[in-house]
């Protein structure tokens, strides 16, 4: 009886070994042997490293090499899985020496796999093959950039994109170990890599990586690629920058290139240096500084939304000062009382229509449910898959921990700390490691059965998760479109501002000006700006026949945008070329008493402003006036200058720090 039991046990052990190693055996019989594959890879790597290899040949070789390396990595994964299963199943029957041999073999295979997953490094080779956006998951990748690609490639075909990936920074790459990885997985890997490279938290992307890897694998294996293709997300697009801020000096300032004043003003600090003159008889060079009291609240509290809710009303108030510039090389040195030409106060009468206003938060409340649908589907999937299966959840955590541990390894830290790499190159290399790890730990494990997804889970992914996710993507795109449209509608509402200007002209008496400024966007990209005002002398000079009321004036301007400036080399900066046609009429009362002067002064102006660099633009205007205030003489004058917008300069500084 005992003999029978022992024989039965030996037979069972034998069956187990054959069954557990069957994937390895099957692989070995599938075409070439694993050893042969290793030899082919070594030969291809030799060709890749050979300096005499033609570039075309190298590209072709590199593509084939990537496929071979991926194939070998897959075989190694299956062999590792087989040995692990064998080790677990036979644990009680194995001696310590046998266990050590198996552990050594697994360790050796893992090291070999890690080496395969490491980027190919040759004199001209790069770890990641950065390619043009894929048309479909089966297309062959073509390497287009052999230095890791630092120039951002904006892509629009980002199917199933991770929820908030910013369009301007997306880049598609093909992993060497997972060439057919879906874009949403590689994009999420890049997002995680970016967080690692910038010392942020890569673990925040584990859920998305798990989601995209599982749905892709299950759908592909079920022959339902159609469901994957149905998942598309509208890319977020940068819109035109605001062009309704008054940065330069007002129309009456010496050297101003503006015939009318705009009702909005720089929120933090506007600095304008302009050269030229419009209505004044004297040419001048002016420096204009403007701000709002809100600035001072941000110094203590930061410019948070909480602070804005408390003190945002202060943005209704604006103050600016205009100085004569003596030292053009250092214009800010002229910001002294002696050089003060004029100063002004503004009060915005209309409601806040910025994107931080209560009105815009109300708009957000109306679309946020649709916006959140992607997260609803992803977290529901994670709940349904892992909250009901403790074993699977344990496996998920192990996989996540392994991935995070990989980022702690010296090879990852070396990439992180490599000062010869740009951030973009670091992101590509780390993303490659993440994709490879996801491939082996999730995709391959699902296919080998070691990551046990129940049939119920698989059916739910096909019948519910994928259709829901496609619908969620559409809902999010719809929410963002609606949000943008309603913000646009808000921007069409008029802005009214009351302005007080205190003017100290170089020639003549000081006076104050009270104006109402109006701006309304008619339709994209045309806005109408209107000014109307009256001015008063501080102290009339009877000799000059001055009375309390100096003049009144009205003006009307049509302003538009003509697309992005061709001089903006920084690809993320969307600063626009602006143009305007302006007419202005002024009744200058005292002139009626002097020969050689005109009381009725009319001005027509065409002005355009071209952004030249971040925060710096070049305004140019051609003006016809039937008279100046001092001389009855028709004139056509061209004016030009440079303006500096510190809001934009600060933005540009922040942009330059982005990968």
């Amino acid at each position, binding site marked *: 009886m005992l003999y029978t039991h022992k024989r039965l046990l030996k037979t069972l052990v034998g069956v187990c070994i054959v069954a557990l190693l069957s994937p390895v055996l099957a692989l070995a019989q599938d075409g070439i042997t694993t050893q042969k594959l290793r030899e082919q890879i070594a030969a291809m790597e030799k060709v890749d490293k050979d300096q005499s290899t033609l570039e075309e040949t190298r590209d072709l070789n590199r593509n084939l090499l990537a496929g071979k390396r991926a194939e070998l990595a897959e075989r190694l994964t299956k062999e590792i899985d087989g040995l692990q299963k064998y080790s677990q199943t036979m644990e009680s029957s194995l001696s310590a020496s046998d266990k050590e041999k198996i552990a050594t073999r697994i360790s050796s295979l893992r090291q070999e796999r890690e080496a395969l997953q490491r980027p190919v490094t040759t004199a001209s080779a790069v770890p990641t093959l950065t390619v043009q956006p894929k048309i479909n998951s089966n297309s062959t990748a073509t390497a287009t950039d052999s230095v890791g690609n630092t120039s951002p490639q904006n892509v629009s075909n980002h199917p199933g994109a991770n929820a908030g990936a910013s369009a301007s920074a997306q880049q598609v790459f093909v992993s060497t170990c997972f060439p057919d990885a879906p874009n949403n997985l590689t994009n999420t890997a890049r997002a995680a890599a970016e967080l690692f490279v910038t010392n942020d*938290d890569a673990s925040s992307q584990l859920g998305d990586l798990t989601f995209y890897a599982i749905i892709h694998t299950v759908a592909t294996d079920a022959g339902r690629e159609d469901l994957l293709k149905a998942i598309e997300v509208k890319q977020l697009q940068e819109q035109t920058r605001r062009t309704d801020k008054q940065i330069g000096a007002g129309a009456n300032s010496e050297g101003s290139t503006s015939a009318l004043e705009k009702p909005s003003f720089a929120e933090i600090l506007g600095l304008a240096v302009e050269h030229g003159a419009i209505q004044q008889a004297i040419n001048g060079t002016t420096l204009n500084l403007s701000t709002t009291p809100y600035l001072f609240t941000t110094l203590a509290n930061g410019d948070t*939304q909480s602070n804005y809710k408390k003190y945002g009303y202060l943005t209704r108030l604006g103050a600016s000062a205009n100085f004569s510039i003596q030292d053009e090389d250092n214009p800010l040195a002229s910001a002294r009382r002696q050089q003060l030409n004029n100063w002004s106060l503004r009060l915005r009468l209309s409601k806040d229509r910025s994107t931080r206003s209560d009105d815009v938060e109300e708009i957000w409340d109306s679309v946020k449910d649709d916006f959140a649908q992607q997260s609803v589907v992803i977290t529901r999937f994670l709940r349904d898959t892992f909250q009901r299966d403790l074993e699977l959840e*344990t496996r998920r955590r192990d996989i996540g921990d392994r991935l995070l541990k990989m980022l702690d390894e010296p090879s990852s830290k070396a990439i992180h700390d490599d000062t010869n790499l740009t951030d973009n190159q670091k992101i590509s290399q780390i993303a490659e490691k993440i994709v490879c790890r996801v491939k082996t730990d999730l995709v391959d494990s699902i296919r080998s059965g070691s990551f046990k997804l129940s049939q119920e889970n698989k059916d739910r992914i096909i019948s519910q998760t994928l259709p829901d996710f496609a619908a969620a993507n559409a809902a999010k795109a719809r929410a963002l479109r609606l949000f943008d449209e309603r913000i646009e509608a808000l921007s069409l509402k008029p802005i009214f501002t009351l302005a007080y200007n205190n003017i100290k002209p170089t020639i003549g008496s000081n006076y104050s000006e009270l104006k109402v400024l109006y701006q309304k966007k008619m339709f994209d990209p045309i806005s109408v700006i209107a000014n109307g005002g009256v001015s008063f002398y501080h102290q009339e000079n009877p000799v000059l026949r001055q009375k309390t009321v100096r003049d009144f004036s009205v003006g009307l301007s049509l302003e538009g945008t003509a697309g992005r400036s061709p001089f903006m080399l920084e690809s993320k900066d969307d600063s626009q070329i602006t143009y305007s046609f302006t007419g202005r009429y002024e009744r200058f009362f005292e002139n009626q008493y002097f020969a050689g002067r005109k009381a009725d002064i009319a001005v027509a102006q065409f002005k355009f402003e071209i952004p030249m660099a971040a925060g710096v633009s070049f305004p140019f205007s051609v003006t016809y006036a039937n008279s100046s205030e001092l001389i009855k003489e028709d004139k056509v004058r061209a004016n030009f200058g440079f303006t500096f917008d510190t809001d934009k300069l600060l933005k540009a500084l922040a942009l330059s720090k982005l990968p």
Partner: protein
Amino acid sequence: MQQITRSIYLVDAGEQVTLEIEATKVGNFTTFVVDGQQIAAVPGSNPQQFQPFTVTVGPGLTHFGRVDAHFPATAPDDADYQLFLTGSAGGGRFTGSDIKKGNLSHSRGLEFRR
């Protein structure tokens, strides 16, 4: 509550978890979802606070959260959202991940593990 990473937390049964998001140079355009359920923001809260959710999963299991943020085109490029998490069972107020306008992804997953 204990913080494992800025996105992974250890929580106790019955503990109430609260998320706050501080927006800088941008409005409160965020959503928070846990296990497929959208969590409502507390009206008028500053910084924006979401209603607490209660830990109900058994030992070894996880509640899955996800935050989505949006940046309008007119938001400055250095605008960001900072996450803060607090558990009713103590541990303090933890600083979570942040979401910058320039980040490749404007979504952050959160795990609340038992």
